[in-house]
């Protein structure tokens, strides 16, 4: 049971670091420590009562370990869960601090600065964790995709969206004293969603590639514990709400106003994902019918949300804190990116001659953000004016993400091929020749390998690929190792399937456009956040 142990190690580590960063006479230290200790206690009890690591497994001890699942024997996967959990758990700090603030009852205190960098760091870990998980799924699981709207991916995305909304409103509330109540609510929500994620993964109530343990007892404990913690916090929040509601009003047309709009959009997407995750359960509990909610639902919901978000981001690029944006400026801000994006869309349509309304909405949204920040950055550099480089880089990352995901969805394709060793065929315009040269069988440390040697003549270039199948000795599990050739625009992704009766082998050849850009854009977002932290330190 690694997950509860992970939680506890990170929980205590974050707690010690944060508590020691506060002065001893800090008015909130006492209550923060109380909240952190209560949460640690809850998780320690969880470990002790439901997944005691020292308990004997059976009346008869296992003779031999079952070996770690082969698909998990991979470096990216050794880093992905710790990163993800560091992120999830990191938000315990803002959660405890906000609850302490609410308990304390002195609302003259400024609390934003104390947790800002801590939350930024947690956000960075969470982002890296999710991106690594997606990258691992791409090259190791052999599905050739990067995101599957799997329930466990969704429960990681919900805290991420909440955290992103939280960061934004935290900036606003520390800059101009608005949205304070809202920021607090989000701070509580992130941790509640993280706990919900732990509950989903551990209880096994939702079928998913990620749900490892199927144990109602654990689920019930986690549910009641996380419910108690969240309800405690929310009840105090609701109790204090009338006193809190005195912060300043948001000026229409100011940066805060657009930021609040996007906050609403992020909450909408969290709610939509939540509905997508729980809907099958609701239906099943009503009439026993099994339904599944897949990519079409999420794509349809997200396309319009992304477009609206992109428009607000575009407008807010030139907006000012606490001051309304003049209509004239607004026009000059939004006209160039819109025109440039429309022109680019036209060229994309001309060159690819594919059309999909959802994908084009995504491309348009991505381009709007990219062009807005590009023009703004050029303008600022030219006039040697100060601008927030961290924000520019992070938002460029977001624009790039929308663009890459949408381009990937319209351009990528898959071919299933059937070849005997020594055979060679022509696949399409781009892959002129596909030669299956040889197949070799050999032994590695803990698995047997069947390795195919394939050479491709793609776009006038000779590529050699070695997709493998592995059989792991201990579990007898068979895995497929993809072989990937990356160029600037696309990945050539090859996996080997089964051998047919006539001796030929099946191959799946996927051409994935812009896929590496997705992780590059995540890296940009992280870089942007890092810059924000270090800029704060410097000033």
């Amino acid at each position, binding site marked *: 049971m690694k997950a509860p142990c992970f939680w506890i190690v990170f929980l205590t580590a974050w707690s010690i670091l944060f508590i020691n960063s506060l002065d001893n006479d800090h008015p909130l230290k006492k209550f923060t420590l109380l909240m952190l200790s209560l949460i640690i206690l809850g998780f320690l009890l969880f470990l002790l009562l439901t997944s005691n690591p020292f308990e004997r497994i059976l009346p008869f001890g296992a003779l031999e370990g079952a070996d770690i699942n082969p698909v998990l024997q991979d470096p990216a996967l050794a880093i992905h869960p710790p990163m993800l959990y560091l992120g999830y758990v990191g938000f315990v700090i803002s959660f405890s601090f906000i609850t302490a603030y609410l308990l304390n009852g002195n609302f003259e205190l400024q609390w934003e600065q104390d947790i800002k960098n801590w939350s930024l760091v947690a956000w960075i870990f969470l982002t890296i964790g999710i991106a690594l998980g997606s990258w691992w799924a791409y090259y190791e699981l052999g599905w050739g995709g990067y995101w599957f709207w799997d329930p466990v991916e969704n429960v990681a995305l919900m805290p991420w969206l909440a955290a992103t909304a939280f960061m934004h409103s935290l900036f606003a509330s520390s800059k101009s004293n608005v949205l304070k109540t809202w920021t607090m609510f989000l701070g509580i929500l992130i941790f509640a969603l993280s706990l919900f994620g732990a509950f989903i993964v551990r209880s096994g109530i939702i079928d998913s590639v990620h749900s490892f343990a199927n144990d109602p007892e654990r689920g019930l404990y986690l549910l009641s514990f996380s419910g108690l913690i*969240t309800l405690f916090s929310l009840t105090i929040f*609701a109790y204090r709400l009338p006193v809190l509601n005195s912060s300043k009003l948001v000026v229409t047309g100011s940066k805060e106003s657009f930021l609040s709009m996007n906050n609403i959009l992020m909450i909408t997407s969290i709610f939509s994902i939540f509905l997508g995750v729980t809907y099958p359960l609701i239906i099943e509990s009503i009439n026993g019918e099994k339904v599944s909610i897949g990519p079409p639902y999420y794509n349809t919901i997200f396309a319009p949300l992304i477009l609206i978000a992109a428009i607000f981001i575009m407008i807010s690029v030139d907006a000012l804190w606490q001051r309304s944006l003049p209509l004239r400026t607004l026009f000059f801000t939004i006209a160039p990116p819109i025109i440039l994006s429309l022109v680019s869309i036209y060229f994309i349509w001309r060159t690819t001659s594919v059309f999909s309304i959802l994908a084009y909405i995504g491309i348009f949204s991505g381009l709007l953000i990219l062009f807005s920040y590009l023009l703004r950055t050029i303008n600022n550099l030219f006039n040697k004016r100060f601008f927030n480089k961290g924000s520019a880089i992070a938002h460029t990352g977001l624009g790039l993400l929308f663009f890459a995901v949408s381009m990937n969805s319209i351009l990528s394709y898959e071919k299933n091929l059937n070849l005997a060793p020594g055979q060679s065929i022509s696949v399409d315009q781009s892959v002129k020749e596909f030669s299956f040269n040889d197949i070799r069988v050999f032994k590695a440390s803990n698995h047997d390998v069947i390795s195919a040697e394939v050479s491709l003549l793609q776009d006038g270039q000779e590529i050699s690929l070695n997709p493998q199948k592995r059989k792991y000795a201990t579990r007898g599990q068979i895995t497929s190792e993809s072989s990937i050739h990356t160029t600037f625009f696309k990945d050539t992704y090859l996996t080997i399937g089964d051998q047919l009766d006539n001796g030929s082998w099946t191959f799946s050849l996927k051409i994935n456009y812009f896929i590496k850009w997705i992780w590059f854009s995540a890296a940009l977002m992280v870089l942007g956040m890092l810059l924000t932290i270090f800029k704060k330190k410097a000033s």
Partner: protein
Amino acid sequence: MNQLLRFLIVILPVVVLIFFAKILLIDEDIKFSNFDSKNFPEFQLNDLNGDPVQSESLNGIKILNVWASWCITCLVEHPFLTRLSEQNIQIIGLNYKDSDSKANAWLEKHGNPYLFSIYDPRGDLAFDLGVTGAPESYLIINNQVVSHIQGEMNQRKWQSIFLPLIQQAKQGS
């Protein structure tokens, strides 16, 4: 308005919590035992003594228990099966992917709760039955596979899944 908002902030999470608790508390085992009954698959196999098994032996109310000498959880459920057999419940073994010498030695050592055990070294019958692993138990009423229990058989699963069906069958006949 503000009162309502304060109320909702607390009540909505409570509703969500109750919903999940309710789903969790629906017994997992009962959920999995929703099972369409089907005819027992045809087979030609011997028992562990080497005598061919007659398909008539599956008439009446029988429990078919999938076991193997390599299966550790089978040892865990073994005392419970022995108790069942002492209460005149008829249990037939399906010796799964095992060798007859090891299987017979196992029965010798731990005791034999089975009327007889079908010897299925390649897992052919198990495949037709849809066995997921050992141990697994099937309730067979007059050559019909009516229900099954995955994993270890115990008092709780016996009472919640097999016993009601057996009582129903007895009342019907």
